């Protein structure tokens, strides 16, 4: 019980990072981006490449940080991967979504995102192969916090949780204290009015993609650290991330954070009552149940 709760929180942190980017894009651009989770894959794989590169140049970087399986090289790589992913997200928007936005409707965007997801996933598979890979082959043993009730926690998970919370905190300050944050909110409220007031819409949109990409890359690396990396992690994660976004309410960054935790916890707790064969359906049960009570998610507002 407590174990499931703890696991849920730790898994939820990764989902939250993914959901923040998704909710921002869905809010500003008003479309359900099914390719968002592929940004996690791009992040995870570019970190893998940088990691190999850095560890090769400076072997000392390959040492582990404290009890974690995170190395200095991987930490550096994560920042590089955030850059690469943010940039790719922006470029994908520039070459695909922006053009479709100009002539098509919202559903065209949704479909284009399906197509983009398919392309990214398979190109990654072609380059890196279809097998799972790991940042570190070592298994870090979980630490027993208490034996009755049983509670085991892996150091990596704590690290990921703290890092995720730190990233969220930084984002919070960016959104609430900077001009960009205000601009973002203005655009979300009313794009035309914001443009009239001198906000450059294209710049805000580009920044939203970059932020979404950065957070996704971090989520991808954290996921890879705790689990494994393969070309289909985007496919595996897209649904829980969507669930987190919707539970939180589209457009609400804090909702997305909370949504991630709720979905993580619920998915872990569900197995206490359901046979494990039904686990893929759990995130949707949560969505359905929540939407019946609150048709716009926890913090979402009716949007036109």
């Amino acid at each position, binding site marked *: 019980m407590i174990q499931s709760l703890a696991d849920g929180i730790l898994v939820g942190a990764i989902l939250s990072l993914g959901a923040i980017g998704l909710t921002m894009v869905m809010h500003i651009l008003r479309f*359900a981006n099914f390719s968002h989770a592929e940004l996690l894959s791009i992040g995870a794989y570019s970190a893998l490449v940088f990691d190999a590169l850095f560890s090769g140049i400076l072997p000392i970087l390959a040492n582990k940080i404290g009890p974690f399986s995170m190395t200095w090289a991987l930490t550096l790589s994560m920042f590089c991967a955030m850059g690469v992913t943010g940039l790719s997200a922006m470029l994908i928007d520039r070459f695909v979504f922006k053009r479709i936005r100009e002539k098509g409707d919202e*559903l065209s965007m949704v479909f284009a995102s399906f197509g983009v997801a398919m392309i990214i996933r398979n190109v990654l598979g*072609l380059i890196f192969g279809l097998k799972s890979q790991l940042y570190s082959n070592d298994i870090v043993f979980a630490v027993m916090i208490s034996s009755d009730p049983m509670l085991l926690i892996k150091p990596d998970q704590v690290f990921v949780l703290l890092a995720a919370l730190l990233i969220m905190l930084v984002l919070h300050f960016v959104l609430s204290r900077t001009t960009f944050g205000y601009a973002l909110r203005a655009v979300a409220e009313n794009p035309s009015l914001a443009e009239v007031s001198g906000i450059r819409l294209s710049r805000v949109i580009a920044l939203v993609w970059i932020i979404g990409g950065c957070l996704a890359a971090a989520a991808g690396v954290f996921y890879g650290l705790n689990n494994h990396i393969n070309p289909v992690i985007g496919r595996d994660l897209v649904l829980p991330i*969507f669930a987190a976004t*919707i539970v939180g309410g589209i457009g609400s960054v804090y909702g997305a954070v909370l949504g991630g935790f709720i979905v993580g916890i619920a998915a872990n707790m569900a197995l206490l009552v359901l046979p494990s064969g*039904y686990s*893929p359906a759990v995130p949707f049960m949560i969505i*359905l149940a929540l939407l019946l009570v609150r*048709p716009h*998610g926890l913090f979402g507002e009716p949007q036109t």
Partner: protein
Amino acid sequence: MMGLISYLVFFITIASILAIAVLGLNLQWGNTGLFNGGVVAFFGAGAYGTLLLGGDPQSDHIGGFDLFYPLALLGGAVAAGVLAWVVGRLTLHLRHDYFAIATFGVAVTFENVMRNAEGLSGGAKGLRGFTRPLEAFVNNGFTYNVLFLLVVTSLLVCTYLFLERLIRSPYGRLLRAIREDEIAACSLGKKPDRIRLTAFITGSCIVGLAGGLYATFYAFVSPQDVLPTLTFQLWAMLIVGGAGNNRGAIFGTFLIWGAWSASGWGLSRFAPVEVQLYTGTMQFILIGLVIVGMLLWRPQGLFPERLVVSQSGCKSK
């Protein structure tokens, strides 16, 4: 030559079955504006319903009632309709993107239940033990396929004519009115919720009919047939063909399914032996590029929706 004809008969059969499903989806999205992200659940309900009702008796799960085939097929469509009624009552009031995800969840749940509930659906190994109607009397596989094709295409034509009549009727006008401006429709005393629900159920029954035909043709259905891939494929067909246009929906189906098959065939034929192992992956990239390219080039689809004048007297619209 004979081989080519035999293959074409087969190809047109599958494409026609899928086209029926896309027509059902078009009623929901193209005419009513319902973003059904879980089409595959209704397709699956039709498929499983038909096989359970029309199959041979089985020991390890319910069903196998060996019903007269048209009844079984009808039963499949009704099963899809019942599912649509339940889902619609729960989710139709949601905003469209929430509705899309909620129905998507329904589809995942449906697949999941079919995979796990062995007593109901045979579990992951699927549902077999179905004798295709009249197969015993037609000894030749090719002749049977031709006969089946005739049945499927006539059902496709019937569905098409039915939907064309429907969207030209006052009811069809109402659907579009609700899609375009719900509040205006309300002000005229119409009940959007009710009408949306009937459109959702009707569309789902049509999708279920396609599912029933599909399962009949393969004499088999398993959870692998009801994965989200199918939802994606059906939607791609509708978008490329042109949402809101029934001819476009049919054309889009043939085009996308044709491209899907042809790219696999072409790669297996022309790619060198060792590269063949990567053809599956490359095929997915190609399909992705086609979809993105299409949306960039012509987002309204090949056959955009035509504004239909419902009565000859209303020419001054």
